[in-house]
Structures are given as structure tokens and as C-alpha cells.
């Protein structure tokens, strides 16, 4: 219990330091853009292919149920709402936690173990500002963009599955998909993924940056980054969904 509280306290302080240093110069724009490229662009194939497959599977699963109730025509709507509301944001967050979180944790822990972080400090460069802030910002920016692409890929997967069974036109599929979708059902769940991104960045940077256990610590930092950031995403989703319902009651209807 004490260890758990200590961990929560330490990561809380780490987060506070990150917030305090976020806008302090230098802004490290170049490093941030580089991290967005590394995290976002390189995660794209994973996110898009996973989204397409999920869309396909979701369509195949829900089709039979909807047919039984004579509501087959609602399939594109169900597909769109499921992806926009939670499948897209949550799965993207978890995929990024797995791919990027492990990468950040291992990379920073390796830099710590090989004294590269000390070397940055010795060169009078603020290592926290250079290594931690750009990664957190990059995750916050990249995850919402990846979520949108996951949503698009999911709809594409659903359309392909529909085509195979009912030869629906793309125009009709999209019309039905977006019939019940308002900005309120799309924007808030997508924006909440910026929080998922920040959590992945924060948790992974915390484990990587603060580890001091040599080579063994590298593996542990990578594993902890994935496990804790995945858990943080799922737990925060509960709170964020509640907040979305509170501020946008029409989404709960």
C-alpha cells in the first residue's frame, strides 16, 4: 500500500513538473515535431489496419443480431456510433500505449542507464525539457489524429463487410452511418484521446526517465509503461465518458 501511494505521489509530482515546464522556454518545437513523426506516422499502419479489421469484425458480429430484429439498415449507424464513441478512441489509446509507451519507456531508461541523460545535463541542457515535454505533447497531438484515422478505417472495414453481404452502395452506407452522428458524438470522444495521449506520454516518460537500475531497468520500464498507461487509459475513460455525458447530455441519449 505504501509503495502504491509513493508511486502515485511521485508520478503526480512528475506530472506537476511537466505542466509547470510545458510553456517555459525553450519550446523544443523541432523535437516535438520529430516525436510526432516517430509516434504518429510510424503508428499509422498499425492503427489503420487494426481499425479496418475491427470494423470488419464488428460488422459481421452485429449484422446477425440486427437482422433478427429487422434493423439491418441501422448497421452503418451502429458502426459509426460504436467507433466514434468508444472503440476508436479506446483502441487507438491502447495501441499507442503498447507501441509508443513501450518505446518511450525503453528508450529513456536506456538513455538513463547509459548515462546519456546525465550527459545532456552536463552539457547545460535541461534534459526534462528536451526529452519529457516533447514526448508528452507529441502523444497528446498524435493520438487524436490517429483516432480519426482509426474511425475512418473502422467504417471502411464495416463497409467492406456490408458489401460482401448486401451490396450496399458507398453513398448509402455513409448516409446511414452519419444520419445519427452529430458533432457532439464525434468531437468530445475524439478530443478526450488527447488525455489518453498525455497519459501514455506521462506514464512512459516517468518510468523511463526516473529508472536507475541499469539494463534490467530498461525492460522493466518498458513493461511498466505499457501496463500502467493501458490501465490509466481505461480508468480515465470511465471518468471522461461521464464528463462527456455531463457536458453534452445529447450524447447519452
Amino acid at each position, binding site marked *: 500500500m505504501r509503495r502504491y501511494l509513493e508511486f502515485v505521489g511521485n508520478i503526480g509530482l512528475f506530472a506537476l513538473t511537466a505542466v509547470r515546464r510545458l510553456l517555459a522556454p525553450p519550446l523544443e518545437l523541432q523535437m516535438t515535431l520529430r516525436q510526432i513523426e516517430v509516434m504518429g506516422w510510424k503508428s499509422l499502419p498499425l492503427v489503420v489496419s487494426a481499425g479496418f479489421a475491427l470494423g470488419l469484425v464488428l460488422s459481421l458480429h452485429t449484422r446477425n443480431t440486427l437482422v433478427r430484429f429487422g434493423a439491418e439498415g441501422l448497421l452503418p449507424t451502429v458502426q459509426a456510433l460504436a467507433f466514434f464513441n468508444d472503440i476508436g478512441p479506446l483502441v487507438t489509446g491502447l495501441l499507442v500505449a503498447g507501441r509508443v509507451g513501450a518505446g518511450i519507456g525503453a528508450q529513456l531508461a536506456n538513455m538513463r542507464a*547509459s548515462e*546519456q541523460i*546525465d550527459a*545532456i*545535463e*552536463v*552539457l*547545460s*541542457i*535541461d534534459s526534462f525539457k528536451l526529452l519529457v515535454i516533447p514526448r508528452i505533447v507529441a502523444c497528446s497531438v498524435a493520438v487524436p489524429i490517429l483516432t480519426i484515422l482509426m474511425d475512418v478505417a473502422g467504417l471502411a472495414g464495416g463497409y467492406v463487410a456490408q458489401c460482401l453481404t448486401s451490396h450496399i452502395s458507398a453513398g448509402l452506407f455513409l448516409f446511414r452511418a452519419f444520419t445519427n452522428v452529430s458533432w457532439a458524438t464525434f468531437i468530445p470522444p475524439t478530443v478526450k484521446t488527447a488525455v489518453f495521449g498525455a497519459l501514455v506520454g506521462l506514464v512512459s516518460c516517468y518510468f523511463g526517465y526516473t529508472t536507475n537500475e541499469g539494463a534490467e531497468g530498461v525492460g522493466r520500464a518498458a513493461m511498466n509503461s505499457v501496463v500502467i498507461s493501458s490501465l490509466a487509459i481505461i480508468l480515465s475513460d470511465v471518468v471522461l465518458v461521464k464528463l462527456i455525458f455531463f457536458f453534452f447530455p445529447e450524447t447519452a441519449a
Partner: protein
Amino acid sequence: MSGDRHPAVAFRDVTRAFEGRTVLRSVSFDVAPGEVLCLIGRSGMGKSVTLKLLIGLMKPDAGAIYVGNENIVDMEENQLSKVRRRMGFLFQSAALFDSMSLYENLAVPLKRLLDATPDAEIEAIVRKNLEDVGLGNDGHKMPGDLSGGMRKRAGLARALMLDPQILLVDEPSSGLDRVTEAEIDALLLRVREKDNSTMVIVTHDIREARRLGGRIAVLDQGSLIAIGSLEELAANENALVRALVSEA
């Protein structure tokens, strides 16, 4: 620390413990400007910790650490950063940034700290420093492509990028063959001759301390048990000091 001429660096009763184990116990020493001090001792006796304390990577539990006339112990990070600009550090592992080429590794401090320096000038300085350590044709290589000796030389070149007045060197010869070891020592001596830098060098190898000259300080069980010239240490009453010095 009064008087006109301050030591380049000084430890005053510095104590540091890790998880209840005291690594340094009330250690005091001075290093004069332009002097070379070699810290020797058995493994785990606090030699590398001493260097990290000297450059502010760690804080002592007690005592004062002076760089020039400034006590760095209670300094804020931005003040410490200014002090560090006068210092260079060669890490035991060289600590090159493995995502950057050798050229980029050396250019980093100049690009980050000297905003107004034109790229052409930075390039000229980096090329010169690489040539000085015999890596003139290797700037494009990644750290992973370098041998241990080349990494050490590259680390030294990077440590010298900001023309430091004080150079801290952690185990310059560890993991190297004798020929490469002597080459690194020759480089350090050349730097000393050229820039008259103050050097604090951690080594476990008395042959190296002998080659580099200057005074030798012996750390054992967290205490500074002897400090002086090689001849003085050879005549020391402590058997461990004599044993460490006579290992050549």
C-alpha cells in the same frame, strides 16, 4: 573560500550516502587551477560519485562543493547550468547520444547553447575537434559503429566543445587495450598542455595516474586516506595506499 586565488574545485567535508551506505564520509580536497588530480581506489569506493557531485549531477548529504568561488550545493538548476558551461565531463561509457551521428553529438552543445553561432562556424569547430582526437573522417558514423577507443575519443571531443576550464574524466581507460589506453592518456595530456585545463581524473589504474602526472588522491571506505605526489604516496604509512601505488 576567501583570498584572491581560489582553487578550481574544492570539496569541504562532503558526505554522501546511498540507502544507508555511506559512500563518501567528510571528504575534503582542493584542486588548483591547471592542476591534474587523479582519484584512485578500489571499485565502489566513491570515485565516480565524487565526479558526479563535482558537476552537480548529485547533491551531497552534507558539506560544500566549490567550483571557483561558488558553492554549487544549493544552486538552482539554471545557476548550476551556468557553472557547468565551464566544465567538461568524459563519462566512463562516453555516453554518446546513440540516435545521433558523431558530428551531431559534437554539434549539440554549440547549437543549443550558442544560438547566434552560424552553422558554418559550428561545422568548422566540430570538424576541428574531431580531427584533434583523430576522428576527422568519422563524423558521419553512428556511435554504435565505433570501437571502444573511438567512443572514448569522441566523448572527449564532445566534452571539449565548449572549451571547458575544468575537465572531469571518469575511467578514461576502462575496457580499452593498453595501446588505446595510452592514446587516450596522450590526448588528455595534449589537452592539458594546450588549454592548461584543470583535470580531475578517476582511474583504478596507477600506470595511468603515473602517465598523467599531477597529484593522486586515494579513496577507501568513503574516506580520503591519502593525497600527494606518487613519491609521497609510495612512502605513505598506510599499507593499502602503498599497495595501490605500487601496482604498476
